[in-house]
């Protein structure tokens, strides 16, 4: 990993091994958000948090007690128990000449019996419901559903979803999921730095919020850790 910088639209953008992997941008109008170490996960403070608890306990999201983990989701122990998390507000919007980067590094402890979605979405308290995509309106995201290890990059506009498939199957190791909107007409998806595919139409233009959803796909507690999650728009 090496840190380099370049100018994009007059903004200084720092990136590491890959030019698409933006880690910081400096400019007067840069819109940058990163899940903080020390985030307040009390609902309606920094995030809107929706928990589904049909088992014997409670689905939670908390600061990681393992060093380096910014958030740890622990589901309750019934099928579909989950945490749906969105940043309060909708600070991002894909718009011409305004490139946007999204990245998430995380781990889930169950590759098959789980649902996972991370990216940007319109306000929605059930991004996935009953093991099916349930984003009502719009979003740009990665997801995987219960009973499969297939991972997809997606762009959704008014309920219509376009996808690109990640060649690698979901496992229980940490991976980096990223997409870069070029500000022209394409969203390119990356998995662990490798380009997965590109979506050039049917992507949203409404305001969106950084979003994370994780559910158990069986009657057992499952966990999802977030090492980092950031969005940078120029």
């Amino acid at each position, binding site marked *: *990993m*090496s*840190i380099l910088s370049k100018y994009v639209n007059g903004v200084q953008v*720092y990136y*590491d*091994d890959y030019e698409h*992997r933006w*880690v*910081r941008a400096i400019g007067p109008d840069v819109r940058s958000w990163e899940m*903080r*170490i*020390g*985030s*307040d996960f*009390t609902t309606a*403070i920094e995030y809107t948090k929706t928990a589904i608890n049909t088992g014997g306990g409670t689905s939670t999201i*908390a*600061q*990681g*007690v*393992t*060093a*380096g*983990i*910014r958030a740890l989701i622990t589901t309750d122990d019934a099928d579909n128990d989950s945490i749906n998390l969105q940043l309060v507000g909708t600070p991002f919007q894909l718009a011409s000449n305004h490139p946007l980067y999204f990245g998430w*590094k995380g781990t889930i402890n169950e590759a098959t019996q789980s649902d996972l979605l991370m990216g940007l979405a319109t306000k929605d308290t059930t991004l996935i419901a009953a093991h099916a995509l349930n984003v009502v309106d719009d979003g740009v995201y990665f997801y995987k559903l219960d009973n499969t290890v297939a991972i997809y990059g997606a762009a959704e506009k008014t309920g219509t979803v376009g996808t690109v498939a990640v060649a690698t199957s979901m496992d229980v190791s940490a991976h980096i999921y990223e997409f870069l909107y070029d500000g022209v007409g394409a969203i390119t998806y990356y998995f662990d730095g490798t380009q997965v595919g590109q979506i050039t139409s049917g992507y949203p233009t409404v305001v969106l919020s950084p979003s994370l959803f994780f559910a158990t796909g069986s009657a057992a507690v499952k966990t999802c850790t977030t*090492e*980092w999650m950031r969005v940078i728009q120029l």
Partner: protein
Amino acid sequence: MGGISSKRLQTPTGDVLVFHDNASEASWVDAIGRDVRKWEMRYGSDFTTAKEYTLTAIGADTIVQGVIAGRRALITTAAAENSGLNMQLIGTPFQLASGKKLYFGAKLTFNTAAGNDFFVGLASTDTDIIVTHAISVAASAVGWYALSSTALVAYNEIHADSVTTTATPVLDTSAHIYEFLYDGTNLNFYLDHALVAQHTTFVPTVVMAPSIVLQSSAGGAAETCAIDWMRCIQLP
């Protein structure tokens, strides 16, 4: 402060760009890298307990946003001996690990030089880091303290085993910068950018949280600690 410089530091997974105060290469102010772990007390922090921080007050002790420009927080103790506030970031996001450099720093101002007990640094989860004018860490900690005297002590501990070095400058009522840099092996302590000591033993290895404690000493006066800034940066 005489300006800012940057340097590339090699980590086990590649380079990271570290910005430091020109006064000291050990005084990190920022770092850019994919897996950098950085925490800094925010302007606008929510000091309600169990939101961003776990706060344990002994008496009518408070922490609030600074009303003086530049102050991120002001701790005020009750006017009673041993009354005070123990504050830790929720979660334990930092852990000293071989080869992974870590910086911690805080700029603090106290209203009396010998009227308080304080600790600032990283500590394992602990609601009473100081008890009755003595360090009372249950597990591990690393940082700076003064205990009802002007003696400033650089310190690290694993359970009851600790190493301390008393700095030559003594505590006064001016702002000072308390820092340590874990170089991947040893702990190096700095006071106002000057190296005070290097500690090579009892370096904690457990997960820890940014922590600060202020308590009133034997005089029982209301004491204050103003926090200009407090940050921790760890490289991958």
